[in-house]
């Protein structure tokens, strides 16, 4: 009877808890021969997020890791400037780590970080594929403080891998590895308002410098980053509000947020309002619900987005009471929640995060729930 034992093969792969390698010992020879067959019992689910907020705990990542169950922290004992976040179920890696040119190199060549020439897509593809197949990798680390590449860190395959950066969907091979892809599309006015809020307290920055910075990056952004929108399964588009007439709200506080979801994506059922496949315009404020200015307006519809069929849910305005949030949640369908009120609970849990009272928080939370649902469906299938 042949003996089978689980064995870690040191040569080609590093031991990962998620996968196992089986060693076959053949009895027909005089000496033991070993043949290693790698069997992945669980392949990692890979999610791609394209966003321009740099590497670090962005609000979207915090909400996502919260939905997936657990705080995400940089790997313990590693580089303190690591861009990676690890939680119980998910690991978030920042694609800036795959820079082929460091800050000095980019300056010498006159290349922005948005330019694909500054990235090593081959290595990105190799490593994401390796993690997806259950092998641990030594991923380079890009130190944002010094602007140089630090020694690599070990990444063991998690249950869910999130790759976050500007070029998550740029390379075709990496795109094929993604189980779900999300693009955060911030319109220019909102981007300016947010960057002003972020940078104005900094010594050295002024409105002009912030504006100049956005404008200087715009050509590369439009050329390399924007086109990724067409490949995304879900796009969260943030626009200025339409509820305040005239010059409106130029501080970017009231936002109109659209969640554009591609139809026909495996394990991903688009959210809808009332009646799937119809067009709905809904103002929940009225007799049953009282809202303060400027109120809330929802829209749901379908259409085409870069040639794909999509469903679009849109929210304009702000929540200012818990009631409004629950009321809205009651009327949305296909949210992939596990219990009634889960969206509201998640939003309240992080009421101090930016966007907790408008569509950005709502749709980020919903996308997080969709990702959890996708992961559970994939796992159930195995």
């Amino acid at each position, binding site marked *: 009877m042949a003996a089978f034992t689980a064995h870690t093969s040191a040569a080609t792969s590093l031991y990962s808890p998620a996968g196992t390698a089986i060693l076959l010992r053949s009895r027909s020879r005089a000496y033991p021969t070993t043949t290693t067959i790698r069997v992945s019992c669980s392949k990692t689910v890979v999610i791609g997020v394209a966003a321009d907020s740099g590497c670090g705990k962005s609000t979207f990542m915090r909400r996502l890791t919260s939905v997936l169950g657990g705080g995400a922290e940089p790997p313990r004992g590693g580089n303190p400037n690591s861009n990676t976040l690890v939680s119980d179920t998910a690991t978030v890696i920042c694609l800036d780590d795959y820079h082929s040119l460091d800050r000095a190199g980019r300056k010498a060549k006159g290349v922005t970080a948005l330019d694909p020439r500054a990235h090593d897509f081959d290595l990105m593809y190799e490593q994401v594929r390796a993690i997806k197949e259950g092998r641990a990798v030594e991923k380079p680390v890009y130190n944002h403080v010094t602007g140089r590449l630090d020694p690599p860190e070990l990444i063991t395959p998690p249950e869910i891998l999130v790759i976050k950066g500007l070029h998550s969907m740029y390379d075709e091979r990496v795109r094929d590895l993604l189980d779900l892809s999300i693009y955060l599309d911030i319109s220019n006015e909102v981007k300016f308002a947010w960057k002003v809020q972020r940078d104005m307290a900094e*010594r050295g920055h002024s409105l002009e410098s912030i504006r100049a910075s956005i404008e200087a990056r715009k050509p590369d952004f439009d050329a390399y980053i924007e086109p990724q929108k067409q490949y995304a399964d879900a796009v969260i588009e943030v626009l200025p509000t339409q509820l305040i007439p005239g010059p409106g709200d130029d501080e970017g506080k009231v936002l109109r947020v659209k969640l554009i979801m591609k139809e026909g994506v495996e394990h991903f059922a688009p959210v809808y309002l009332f009646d799937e496949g119809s067009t709905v315009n809904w103002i929940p404020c009225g007799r049953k619900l009282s809202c303060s200015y400027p109120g809330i307006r929802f829209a749901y519809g379908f259409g085409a987005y870069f040639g794909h069929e999509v469903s679009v849910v849109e929210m304009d305005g702000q929540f200012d009471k818990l009631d409004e949030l629950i009321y809205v949640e009651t009327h949305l369908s296909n949210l992939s929640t596990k219990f009634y009120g889960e969206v509201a609970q998640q939003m309240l849990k992080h009421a101090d995060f930016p966007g907790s009272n408008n569509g950005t928080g709502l749709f980020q939370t919903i996308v997080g729930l969709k990702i959890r649902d996708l992961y559970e469906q994939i796992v159930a299938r195995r």
Partner: protein
Amino acid sequence: MASTVASLSIPATTFAAADVLPRRKAASRVWFPVARRGGFSVRSTGPATPPDISDKLSESIKEAEATCADEKGTAECAAAWDNVEEISAAASHARDNLKENSDPLEKYCKDNPETDECRIYDN
């Protein structure tokens, strides 16, 4: 203790106010209004930004302004401003990290909002 009480009351009001910047409500921050134009730099340092990043940021801004003064719209100009953006993002993340780790109660409550010390009452 006072800061604990303040932080317990903040979430209730955050939800009510049309506020995209709840973090800036902390009483210890001095918030200068944004309405300055004409090449003025706001003089307050982001109080929590580590000084080395803050210095790097100011330097990179000066450098970018210098590079773009000569030749606007070139690749070098774009690269210089992109550099500024990268350092600004790093500064913002450093501030967030410092803020997160500054108050042990806040840190604990973030992970355990249901415990008695961290409960938030809405009335």
